[in-house]
């Protein structure tokens, strides 16, 4: 085991545009931050640049935790390792046929590219039935021939995916054993290994994604470790998983699919951690980016985790992931007037290139960011990367494209864009929260990302959310998530029985075995932990239903009556429907084992030495900001200069390197010990 309290911990998160780094030295209390451009061709360069920019002393670091988009990008862009599939005779097209949907309800078009092309999907005679009974024996020679064929075709990874392997994995195990003798490397994924549940498309895609990113992640991590060692680093490298936990670099490639979507997950972990320290356990997280925004729900400081995330059309990756939902509005969302003469914002986005007009990169269509600039909410200089566009240019386009058809001037058009965009985003957040069974009014809004804190107060007011929490460093929240993440392993075991017929002792044995397995995995990691937590839950439904309702359990040794009561209560809370006469099914037993790490002090995320004594010293300037239909002469503060526990009343703008916080009239903001801003939403607006 490593020492109890590591000294210097680095979290480094590679995003689409920037690589962010935060280093917390618990001994000296020192914090270092860096934000450098990402290097998509090899993310390791960005990581090293960030370490250099932060002047981190690699030899003195105790731990580096890394969030990477290597696997996410590989899947979404289909830049995958050449991968083959060996599957049950008659079923090679399962990965291509999917569940026969189309991408959008209206419009009879769509494009789908399977992870493994048809000529690399080979069939072998074998068949299990749904009870795991062999119908057709495995043709071992056929496996060998298929394996040799795939090797000859240059495949780097292979998936063995047989029907009903979740019920009996014997054929998959045997086929994998045969392949090990002929496969040139370790990249063999069995369908049942990551997800031992029925549904052949979802299980197959999950396995195929794992196989197809495994060689890429393996190479990437090896290269990064090597580079870090060369730089003098002697500690452990941990990698973030999509469930918000982390695993050691030596094991991460085994279950490479679990790193998909780990970036958004680490942001949510940081939110949960920050919220818990601030005494706010129920949060809706809102990360507003350039093209879209991410929303997640945290209850009792626990992020919602789902096993059924579909990362794009027909691409289900069914491993436990923090349930982050993407809504189609970001700073680059384009505003236009439709043929009915009504204003629409999004879903088209100007993206990062050319981006909003104010970027000066050639963008010519009005966006949310441009509206923020016109209204003085966003500093024109801060928003732009080049100086070639003047605020007058932006105004002229707003007046022409939006103002003229709507009968408004440029400012009126910009205010309308913000109003409609906020309404749309609030509606989408509301849909996310009710689909997860939550009333937004019971939550605080955790706003991060570059633009999240700019819209947070308006969104909270629209949603009836009483309070907004803006962390100290909204723009590097994902990197902070790496630093504060715990070790975590999630288990799902399908039980599938009517509650009346449940063998209670079997359930208890399942929980015990899940907990034991998780504890053993955590013990293998060379990481100090403060303690172990085990979260238990069951997935239940009424007989005849297909939806599952997750019911958290305080303890694993529950009896049938308690389960029935907890389920009926949870069902009523969610749907306001009582169904006393219908029996319940217990479908899954779930356990998460969490190795909690030492508490980190976040108070130095904003350097205490830089804080000024009073508000007037922290004020940079004043400028007119358009809020609630009129211009307000508004103080503009510099976040790093604000006194420790300040209070202020809106309107106010607080600017910092990576974000802008807008406090609207009627709202009251205060600083807390960790450098967060807590905003109480007033009634007006």
């Amino acid at each position, binding site marked *: 085991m490593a020492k109890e309290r590591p000294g210097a911990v680095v979290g480094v998160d590679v995003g689409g545009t920037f690589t962010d780094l935060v280093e917390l030295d618990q001994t000296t209390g020192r914090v270092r931050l860096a934000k450098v451009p990402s290097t998509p061709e090899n993310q390791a360069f960005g990581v090293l640049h960030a370490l250099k920019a932060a002047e981190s002393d690699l030899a003195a670091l105790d731990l580096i935790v890394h969030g990477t988009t290597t696997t996410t990008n590989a899947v979404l862009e289909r830049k995958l390792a050449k991968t083959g599939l060996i599957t049950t005779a*008659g*079923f*090679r*097209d*399962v990965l*291509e*046929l999917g*569940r*026969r*949907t*189309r991408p*959008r*309800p*209206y*419009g*009879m*078009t*769509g*494009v*789908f590219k399977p992870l493994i*092309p*048809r*000529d690399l999907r080979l069939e072998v005679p074998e068949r299990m*039935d*749904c009870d795991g009974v062999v*119908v057709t024996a495995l043709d071992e020679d056929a496996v060998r021939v298929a394996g040799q064929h795939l090797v000859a075709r240059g495949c780097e990874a292979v998936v063995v995916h047989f*029907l009903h392997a*979740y019920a009996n994995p014997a054929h998959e195990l045997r086929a994998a054993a045969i392949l090990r003798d002929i496969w040139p490397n370790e990249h063999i994924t069995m369908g049942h290994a990551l997800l031992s549940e*029925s549904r*052949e*498309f979802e299980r197959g895609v999950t396995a195929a994604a794992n196989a197809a990113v495994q060689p890429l992640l393996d190479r990437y991590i090896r290269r990064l470790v090597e580079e870090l060692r060369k730089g003098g680093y002697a500690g452990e490298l941990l990698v973030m998983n999509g469930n918000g936990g982390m695993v050691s670099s030596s094991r991460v490639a085994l279950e490479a699919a679990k790193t998909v979507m780990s970036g958004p997950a680490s942001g949510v972990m940081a939110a949960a951690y920050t919220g818990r320290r601030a005494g706010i356990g129920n949060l809706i997280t809102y990360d507003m980016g350039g093209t879209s925004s991410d929303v997640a729900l945290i209850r009792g400081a626990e992020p919602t985790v789902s096993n059924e995330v579909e990362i794009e059309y027909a691409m289900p990756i069914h491993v436990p992931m923090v349930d982050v939902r993407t809504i189609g509005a970001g700073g680059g969302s384009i505003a236009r*007037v*439709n*043929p*009915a*003469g*009504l*204003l*629409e914002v999004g879903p088209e986005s100007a993206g990062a290139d050319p981006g909003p007009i104010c970027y000066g990169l050639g963008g010519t269509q009005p966006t949310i960011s441009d509206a923020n600039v016109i209204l003085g909410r966003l500093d024109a200089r801060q928003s732009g990367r080049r100086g070639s566009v003047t605020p007058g240019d932006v105004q002229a386009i707003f007046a022409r494209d939006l103002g003229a058809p*709507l009968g408004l001037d440029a400012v009126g058009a910009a205010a309308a864009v913000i*109003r*409609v965009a906020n*309404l749309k985003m609030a*509606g989408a957040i*509301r*849909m996310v929260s*009710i*689909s997860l069974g939550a009333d937004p009014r019971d939550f605080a809004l955790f706003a991060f990302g570059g633009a999240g804190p700019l819209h947070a107060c308006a969104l909270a007011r629209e949603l009836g959310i009483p309070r907004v929490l803006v962390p100290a460093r909204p723009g590097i929240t994902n990197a902070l998530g790496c630093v504060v993440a715990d070790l975590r392993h999630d288990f799902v075991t399908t039980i599938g029985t009517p509650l009346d017929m449940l063998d209670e002792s079997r359930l208890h044995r399942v929980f015990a075995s899940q907990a034991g397995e998780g504890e053993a995995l955590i013990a293998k990691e060379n990481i100090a932990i403060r303690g172990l937590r085990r979260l238990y839950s069951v997935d239940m439904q*009424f007989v*005849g*239903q*297909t*939806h599952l309702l997750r019911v958290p359990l305080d303890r694993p040794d529950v009896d049938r009556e308690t389960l029935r009561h907890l389920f009926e209560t949870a069902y009523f809370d*969610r*749907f*306001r*429907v009582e*169904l006393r*006469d*219908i029996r319940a099914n217990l479908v899954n037993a779930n356990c998460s084992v969490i190795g909690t790490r030492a508490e980190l002090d976040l108070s130095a995320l904003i350097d205490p030495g830089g804080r000024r004594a009073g508000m007037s010293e922290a004020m940079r300037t004043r400028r007119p900001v358009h809020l609630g239909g009129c211009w307000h002469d508004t103080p503009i503060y510099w976040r790093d200069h604000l006194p420790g526990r300040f209070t202020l009343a809106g309107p106010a703008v607080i600017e910092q390197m990576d974000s802008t916080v807008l406090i609207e009239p009627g709202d009251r903001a205060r600083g807390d010990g960790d450098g967060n801003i807590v905003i109480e939403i007033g009634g007006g607006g």
Partner: protein
Amino acid sequence: MTLDPITLTVIQAGLQQVCDEMDLSFSRAAFSPVIAEANDRSDGIYSAADGSLIAQGSGGLPVFVGTMQYSTATLIAMIAEGRAAAPRPDDIYIVNDPYLGGTHLMDVRFARPFYRKGRIFCWLSNTGHWPDTGGAVPGGFSASATAVEQEGLRLPPVRLFKQGKLDKEIMAIIASNIRVAEQRIGDVKAQAAALLVGERRLNDLLDRYGDETVAGAIAELHERAAVQMRAFIAEIPAGSYDAVARIDSDGVIDEPLTIRLRVTRKGDGLVFDFAGSSPPCAGPMNSVRATTLSSVYLAMRHIFPEVPMSAGAFAPLRVTGIEGTFLDAQYPRPVSGCAAEVSQRIAEAVFAALVAPLPGRVTAAPAGTSGNFALGGHDPARGRDYVMYQISGGGYGGNGDHDGLSNGCSTIGISKAPPVEIMEQAFPVLYRRYALHEGSGGAGHHRGGFGLDYEVELRRGTARASFVMDHGRFGPQGALGGRDGACNAVTVWRSGVAHTPQHLSKEQDIALNPGDRVRVRTPGGGGFGDPFTRPPEAVLEDVRLERYSVQQAAQLFGVVVDGAPPRIDAEGTQALRGGRAGAGAATVSRRPR
């Protein structure tokens, strides 16, 4: 009252949110997998005066675009005439009568008057597809019914909830006439709860913006939706566009049914004239007026997805000539095929008519059948009776930008197919194959998508197989020189002897014993544009991936492929294609924005 466009936008978004929250609430709480999993439901807000559509949830099944406005209109008229009970607050009417503005009997509608200050401000209504409403066969899709009474229990509008309380007597009558009745109370409560969610959220909206403002906005939005639709119609050059679409048979008499459609742009409106279509049929492939109109609207929404769902958007669309045809069937004609099959053929006719004037927006014909295969029997191992449904997808038509999608869902649906593993857990069957229907995509510059090819074997007990499918005789139509997609093909192997259903795509109660098999190959999509202009590399790729044979590459696309690994024979291709290679690609215009 004139309202500024921003307030209009805000209220439009608010009304949409109310409907979307109803949709979400309904499917999350529903019992029926058809509703919960397949989203075979819809929720909306309807005008108090005439029932016209104000807003509808964006997650609703496409076939319900606009249908509830007809049932709500009929209900309002019946109340006025004293043929239905007068409404009181917290009442909920139930109705599934196809001839009173409906679809088939399984689509059960609830309608709730929404009161403000003691007066009905609007109606909230939803539809959910119940798994069974009685009748000759479980599930209601009888291929050989000749009267609606054989299809299930028909409910006129009656108040199932009276001032908030469920009428247990009416519920008892319903429960005594349908299968798996004990679970329906779950759907009834979910359907009613969704309307309550709508009422709460609509009250919030009205409290915030004021009743008069919202009422004014609704009227104005109606007008503007019409303006928006007219702007899209203006993309269509003035003139008339003809199309024909055919249904294999009605399931009873083995003769094709014909839809004749002439779309005429008159000014800034479109007239859809169905005169000359087949008369009402003996079997269940009749449509009712509401479903026929909705099918036209849903086709137009596939073409112009940007148009809001509002009666105003449909105002510039006029449907004529359906009287006396099978598209406007009257009592007691059987109608169970209207929503699942006839509606898709109506949509196909609209696509076929408009693809020439709108080549950037309209695709060649999609598979266009719900592919309903039902297997009912007794499982001796579990000692119980069962009914299994396999609904399947098919290829989509090629379009101006891309090849068609393979194995897409029906034109009128958005539902997922059940996994093979789940089917085998639930029913005594073993799938021998679940594969791409090779060669099925219609040849074209952009080819059609491929259908599905599955084969299922009965393992235990005896069973009866029924099929309500289509496109067995005529493949989905190609467009602009593209070829038709492959036909649907059903083969039943009994004791090793192959049997083809008499009506190709429809037959009821074929007896099966253990070891007997059913193979279904679903249609491919129609091709788009001249196949001889398809880049030879794309044809080679399809051959390499075994989607087409070498022979098909030559016959259908004029591309000669040989060798192993396969390569293009440039000279042979040149010889087959003559001067046509490469030409024509430019005639395919891109989707305008």
